[in-house]
C-alpha cells in the first residue's frame, strides 16, 4: 500500500511539473463540450433537448474520452522513456503498481471531471439546478470504476502495436454497461434532485468497481511481466 502511494505521488509530482496530461485531457474534454454545443445548438435553443439530458450524456462522454487519453499516456510514457522496466524491477508487488497507477489516474481524471463540470456549467449557463455537489459525487463514483478498468486495459494494450486505437476498442465495450449507462441515469437523477432513485445504479457501478479492481489487482502480475 505504501508502495502504491509512493508511485502515485511520483506520477502526480511529474504531472505537477509538466502539467502535460491534465492539460491535454482537459483540452480534449473542453473540445468535446464545445463540439456538443455546436452539434446540438438548434436542439438546445429550440428546447427540443433539455440541458439536463445534454449535461448528463455529454459529461459522461467527456469523462470517458478524457479517461482514454489519460490512461493511454499513463503507461505509454513509461514505456517510451523505458522507465517501465525500472518500475517492474522495483522490489514491490505488481499489484501495488496497479493500485498506484490507478490512484494517480483517479486524481488526474477527477480533476478533469471537475473542470469539465465547471466549464459545461459556464458554457451553457447551467447551474445543475442547484445539485452540482451530487453531480460531482456521481462523477467520483463512476470515475473510480472507469479508472480501475481503464488502468488495467491501458496496461494490457501498452505492448500492442496499434495501442492508440486499441485502447478505446478494448475499453469502450467494457464500460458501456458498467459505467456509461448507469452513470448517465444517475447524473440525470442527481440533477433532478432525485438521487435516491438511482441507488441501484450506484450500487451496480460500485459492484463493477469491485469486479474490475479485483481482476486488476490479481492479474496485474501477469500483465506486466517479461
Amino acid at each position, binding site marked *: 500500500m505504501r508502495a502504491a502511494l509512493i508511485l502515485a505521488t511520483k506520477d502526480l509530482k511529474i504531472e505537477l511539473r509538466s502539467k502535460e496530461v491534465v492539460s491535454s485531457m482537459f483540452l480534449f474534454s473542453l473540445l468535446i463540450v464545445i463540439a456538443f454545443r455546436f452539434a446540438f445548438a438548434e436542439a438546445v435553443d429550440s428546447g427540443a433537448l433539455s440541458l439536463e439530458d445534454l449535461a448528463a450524456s455529454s459529461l459522461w462522454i467527456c469523462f470517458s474520452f478524457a479517461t482514454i487519453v489519460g490512461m493511454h499516456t499513463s503507461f505509454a510514457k513509461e514505456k517510451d522513456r523505458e522507465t517501465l522496466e525500472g518500475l517492474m524491477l522495483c522490489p514491490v508487488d505488481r499489484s501495488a503498481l496497479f493500485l498506484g497507477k490507478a490512484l494517480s489516474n483517479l486524481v488526474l481524471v477527477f480533476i478533469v471531471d471537475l473542470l469539465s463540470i465547471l466549464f459545461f456549467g459556464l458554457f451553457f449557463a447551467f447551474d445543475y439546478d442547484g445539485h452540482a455537489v451530487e453531480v460531482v459525487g456521481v462523477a467520483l463514483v463512476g470515475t473510480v470504476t472507469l479508472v480501475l*478498468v481503464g488502468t*488495467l*486495459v491501458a496496461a*494490457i*494494450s501498452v*505492448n*500492442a*502495436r*496499434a*495501442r492508440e486505437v*486499441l485502447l478505446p*476498442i*478494448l475499453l*469502450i*465495450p*467494457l464500460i*458501456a*454497461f*458498467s459505467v456509461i449507462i448507469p452513470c448517465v441515469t444517475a447524473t440525470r437523477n442527481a440533477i433532478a434532485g432525485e438521487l435516491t432513485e438511482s441507488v441501484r445504479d450506484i450500487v451496480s457501478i460500485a459492484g*463493477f468497481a469491485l*469486479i*474490475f479492481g479485483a*481482476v486488476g489487482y490479481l*492479474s496485474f502480475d*501477469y*500483465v506486466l*511481466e*517479461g
Partner: protein
Amino acid sequence: MRTERVGKYLIAVSAILVLLTTYLAIFYVPLPATSVRSANDILSSLDGNSITVVGFIVDLKVTPPPGLDASERINFTLADFSDYQRYRGAISDGVLEEGWWTVRPLDVLAFTGGWTGPYLGGILSNGTNVSVTGVVTAGAVGPNSAATGFHIGVSGSRNVDIGTSAAEFSIMTAPVAQKIFYFHMPSAWICYLAFFVTLLSSVFYLKTRNPKYDRWAFSAAELGVLFATLAILTGPIWAKQEWGVYWRWQDTKLTTTFVLWLVYIGYLMLRASMQEPGARARVAAVYGIVGFVTVPMSLLSSRIAPLLRSGHPQVIATSSGGLSPESGLTVGIAVVAFTVLFITMLIKRVEVAESEEELEELKREVGGEA
C-alpha cells in the same frame, strides 16, 4: 494420426446432426400458435388474468398523418369495436352508463409492434403486426355483441383498431421466420459456451504457462465470435416479422449481446496486434478474463427483464408453458448438433493453430525472417 480420425467422425456426426436440425425445423415443427386468443376468450377472461391480443392494425385513426407523435401515450383498453363506439358516443353525450359496454382497461406488460416504452414512437401504421399483453384490471363486460375486432385507445382522439374479425385472432400463428429460432438459440448458447472455454483456458494458461491452453483460449474465442455473429444476424430476421423492426436499441438482451461481441472482437484485435507469443498469450489471457464480465450480463438480461427492459423471449424454463413437445425435441437436437459442431471446429482450429506454430518454428530454423 489418431486425432485426425476422431476429427473425421466428428465432422460426419456434426454434419448429419445439423442437417437433421434443418430438416426438423423446416418440415417437422409446426409454427407455434403463440399467445393467440380468440376474441371471445378475451372478452370472457376474468379480472387479473393476463391476456395477449395479436393482430394487424387495420385502422389507424390519426388526424395529422403520418403515424403518431412521440409524445402520445397509449391508454390501453381493449374493447369490442362496436361497443367501444357506443362507449365513446355515450361519453360525448354525457350519458355514461356503467356495465353496458365492453371496455377492459389493461395493465400492460408488453407491447410489440416496433415500439417499447409508454410512448408511441410514430412507427405504427396500417398493417403493422402488433401484440399487446396485459393484465385485465377491470372487467366492464356489458351486453356482449359479436366481437368484430379490438381497439387500443390512444390519448386524445387518436385510436388504433386491431384485427377485423374474431377469426383473425383465433388462427394467428407466429411468422415463418420463427423457424430461425432453431439456429438462433443454439448459436447464442454456443457463443456463451465458447467464451466460457476462453475464460477457463485463460485461467489455466496463467497458472501453468502451457502454450496449449493459449491455443484453446484463442481458438474458442474465434469460434465464439463466429457463433455470436450468427446469433446477432439471425435474430433480426425474426425480429423484423415479429416486432416490425430489425433491431431495438431499447432491448437489453440485444445491446448486451452486441457489446459482448465487441469485447471479443477487441480480444481478437489485441492478439493480432501483438507479435511476441509469450506476451500476447499473457495479456490476451487477462483480457479474456476481464471480458467475460459481459457474458453473464448478456445471458441473464432477459431473465431480469423487469429490471432492465427486454422484450426478448426467454427460452429456458419460463412459467408460461414454454415449448411444445415437437419444438422441444427440435431445440434439443439443435443444441446437441451445434455443441458437437462447436467441439469439432474447436479441435480442428486448435490443430491449425498448432500447425501454424510449427511453421513459424520451421521458418525460424531455416533462418529466414519469420
